[in-house]
């Protein structure tokens, strides 16, 4: 409760929460908010500048950009959220195993993460999704694979740090089983660093998803994603800059929201860094 109050008193955290809510709201209520059909083409309406009829203008096929940006939020946020959740759970599990079991298992798991981390993240994601083929699933898998070792190392480091505490020794000395020590005594302490880092990685994944679909590796057109709308506008920067400007603005505001929220969470959950 105390923490919630501290969080609510920070105007930047509130601003972040609002920005993220707007993006999630756009995704969830896209069919209600949309003014047009996301895929319907109207050649007579092509390359119209923003107006009351078309809030963000239209693209070369006469499709309404505002509508497409709303529907694009669905795919972009779904991919990033799904990949974050998968990487967080699998990575944490691996990190916990490495941290608790130790020995050879730990060494093997950590060397495996070393290899994955030896590649620039976005490049590895590009390589994997290129190999798996275009589509939402391959992007989720690619991002999952890139971020899994990052979460694993973080979880392991957190476990190692917590295990040095006296209260863990005390629990063990009192006869608690290893599983109970892990679940009751170590678990809660590693949650906050993981949550804070998950918010950072979530924002990175939104950017990565948009970069991949900008390159044509994501959900293929005509389904809208922020990245592929932006990419379609690239050839029309002179006559119709609005095609690329608005989806990019949505990416920026959403990522900014997540980052503000992450900063707020860190200050709240880790009082030392206040």
């Amino acid at each position, binding site marked *: 409760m105390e923490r919630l109050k501290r969080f609510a008193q920070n105007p930047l955290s509130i601003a972040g929460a609002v920005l993220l809510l707007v993006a999630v709201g756009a995704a969830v209520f896209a069919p209600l908010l949309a003014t047009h059909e996301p895929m319907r083409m109207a050649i007579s309406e092509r390359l119209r500048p923003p107006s009351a009829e078309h809030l963000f203008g239209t693209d070369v096929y006469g499709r309404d950009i505002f509508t497409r940006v709303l529907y694009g939020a669905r795919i972009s946020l779904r991919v990033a959220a799904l990949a974050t959740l998968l990487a967080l759970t699998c990575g944490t599990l691996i990190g916990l195993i490495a941290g608790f079991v130790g020995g050879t298992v730990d060494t093997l798991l950590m060397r495996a993460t070393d290899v994955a981390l*030896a590649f*620039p*993240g976005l*490049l590895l994601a590009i390589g994997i999704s*290129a190999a798996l083929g275009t589509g939402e699933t391959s992007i989720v898998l690619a991002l999952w694979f890139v971020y899994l070792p990052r979460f694993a190392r973080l979880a392991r480091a957190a476990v190692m740090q917590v295990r040095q505490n006296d209260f863990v020794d005390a629990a063990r000395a009192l006869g608690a089983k290893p599983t109970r020590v892990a679940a009751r005594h170590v678990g809660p302490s590693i949650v906050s660093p993981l949550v804070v880092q998950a918010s950072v990685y979530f924002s990175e994944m939104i950017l990565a998803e948009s970069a991949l679909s900008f390159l044509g590796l994501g959900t293929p057109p005509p389904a809208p994603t922020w990245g592929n709308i*932006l990419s379609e506008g690239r050839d029309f*920067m002179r006559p119709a800059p609005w095609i*690329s400007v608005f989806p990019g603005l949505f990416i920026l505001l959403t990522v*900014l929201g997540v980052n503000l929220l992450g900063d707020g969470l860190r200050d709240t959950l880790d009082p030392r860094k206040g």
Partner: protein
Amino acid sequence: MLTVALRRLLTLVPVLLAISFVSFLLLAIIPGDPAVMMLGADAPPPALEALRERLGLDRPFLERFLVWLGNAARGDLGASLYQHRPVAQMVLERLPVTLMICLLATLISLAIGLVAGIVSAVRRNKPIDHVVRIVSLIGLSMPDFWLGLLLILLFSIHWQVFPLTGFVPLSQDFLGSLRFFVLPSFALGLTLAGFLTRLTRASLLEVLSADYVRTARSKGLRERVVVLRHALGTALLPLVTVVGLNFGRLLGGAVVVESVFSLPGVGRLIVLAISQRDFPVVQAAVLYVAVIYTVINLLTDLSYMVLDPRVRYA
């Protein structure tokens, strides 16, 4: 210190081996028969058979890897399926463009990040600090390829200061070529600058609260001397690591930004190769970039050793 450095150098061997293995796997994880994927489902069976043999697909997995590794060690990473040229050569001739973008972006982000970070830390909680913090957060939240498009809109279309299309190789006319690098480097560098600003600020603030800084202040030294002569050196140490680590982020970002500006770098090569399903090229490019990244990380570690006596004697 030399033994520590040599030992660190030795760890490079397994990492490079593992990188090669993952790059090799990239071709192996393509679902279905790679020969059919590359030639199309309606390709004549003899052609498919020939390609399978050429790629060595009829042999066991491990043997294929070892053969590939042996060739790779000699700089032979196979030939492009479309251009019929060695892929290693194709990657190497495009590498300077990509590295140049990353280098310029690093310089830009350092210049902005250091100045903004120091100002922000020294004027903590003053209006300028709030402005810097918000602007840097916006910077690091910005998709670099979108910033690239905005820069094109402003500087190539509206003001026409920088060229919209075309390219002159660095080797042909170095200064003339630099014009084509300005906007892409800023697109990458500005987003990274936001990150470095935050880091410089946090690092400097931590050092400024250290005991030895209080001692320096209580000796009556001027604040400028305290910050620049006593605190800054210590505060900048973590930045060495971050700049090294961020080179990986830049290499990834360069892939996308090159596509925005149609620059003939490795990134553009990868994207074109993916659209043509020219997988040996993708594989070679990924491998080269990962090796460069690994070497840069090694250099970062070594320079850290030189700069920080605690690491040197540990």
